[in-house]
């Protein structure tokens, strides 16, 4: 074999420390990251000075989109170990005379973001595989007085998990009547304490000015 002739030496930079730092940063980011789940509707939450963090579990979140649709989510994202989600779905199915099989319950459990599907279409929604196809079913939960499914969801969620806490996540531009309707439903069901999801912003008040 002919000997490969090495080219004349170029100055070699030792990249080891750089690689080490990168690895540390990468590990840190990998461990701390929480993936943002795409919500069915784009929602820009308003700002407040509140510093209480969002609860990770025992929560039901109602997403109010700017065009007045209502979506809901239990335990923000994938289900926790206690498996409240399929139980809520089964109870809801019983109320409306729909039976959900094992597969559909698991799909409901796994669904990572908010759902706004009328219960009559829930079965088809859960059996649809593609995300694009599922999107068509997200028409918002009906909540008029004739067919108040939102109230039913809240009621069964509270029956299954008595510690559940209601959170409302609305867009700044959501019309007030929609918000009022949701608040009324909550109030009718005796949910008196609930949380509004906001982003943090600082507010400064000049003390000297006030103390004049």
């Amino acid at each position, binding site marked *: 074999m002919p000997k490969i002739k090495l080219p004349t030496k170029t100055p070699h930079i030792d990249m080891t420390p750089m690689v080490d730092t990168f690895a540390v940063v990468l590990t840190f980011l990998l461990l701390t990251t929480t993936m943002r789940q795409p919500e069915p509707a784009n929602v820009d*939450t308003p700002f407040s000075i509140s510093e*209480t963090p969002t609860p990770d579990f025992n929560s039901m979140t109602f997403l109010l989109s700017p065009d007045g649709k209502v979506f809901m989510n239990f335990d923000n994202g994938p289900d926790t170990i206690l498996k409240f989600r399929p139980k809520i779905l089964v109870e809801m199915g019983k109320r409306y005379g729909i039976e959900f099989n094992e597969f559909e319950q698991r799909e409901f459990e796994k669904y990572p973001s908010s759902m706004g599907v009328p219960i009559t279409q829930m079965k088809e929604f859960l059996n649809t595989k593609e995300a694009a196809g599922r999107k068509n079913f997200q028409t918002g939960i009906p909540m008029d007085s004739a067919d108040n499914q939102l109230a039913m969801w809240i009621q069964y969620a509270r029956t299954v998990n008595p510690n559940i806490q209601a959170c409302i996540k609305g867009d700044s531009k959501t019309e007030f009547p929609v*918000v009022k309707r949701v608040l009324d439903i909550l109030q009718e069901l005796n949910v008196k304490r609930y949380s509004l999801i906001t982003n943090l912003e600082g507010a400064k*008040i000049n003390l000297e000015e006030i103390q004049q």
Partner: protein
Amino acid sequence: MAEVIVEEKGGKKKAKKHPPRLDMTPMVDLMCLLITFFMLTTALSKPKVMDITLPDKLTDPNQKAPLIAASRTLNIILGPENKIYWYPGTVKPEDYNNLPPVFETDFSATGIRQLLLDRNRALFRKIADFKQQVISGKINISQDSTESAIRKLKTDDDTGPIVLIKAYKKANYGNFVDILDEMNICGIARCPFVDIAWYEERMVEAAAGIAATTTASSN
């Protein structure tokens, strides 16, 4: 490690002069990409929540809402286009033909906040002093009890305004959160959220120059 040390075997082969160097550039490139990806997708600031409590709904028709002093009452109505309308005291629905004017203000620091702070000066100063003393160590109190101590200050308060928050139908959710936030900032002790009355809708419509809705809702 960047360099791999190759052991010589038995001396049969010629010892290599340079140990093979691994080129790490592609690895660094890849790591850079991954770091950028994670930095962009990660949600660093977790959303916060603001707790609110609503009063019981009056189901019994014989039950009456608690009476409050008109002199302490301040009515705030969230209007269209991010405006706030307010008026002090109460209005009787009998005065339909002679409704008092509403004052217009906005969500800026010199708007509603100034108004609320002016009326709530005593309590606000008390809370601010208390916080100052906690920070400077004059009062030795644990972090958990600070909150409840402030809440105690608020419930004991009997001079500050009672703010009734109402919303006109053209208001949006952002206004609602903003006004509740403003109550927190100004340390308002009592700020129930109540339904808007039909005569108040009229007052807002008159002030904002909106044609009055023909079907006056009765709630």
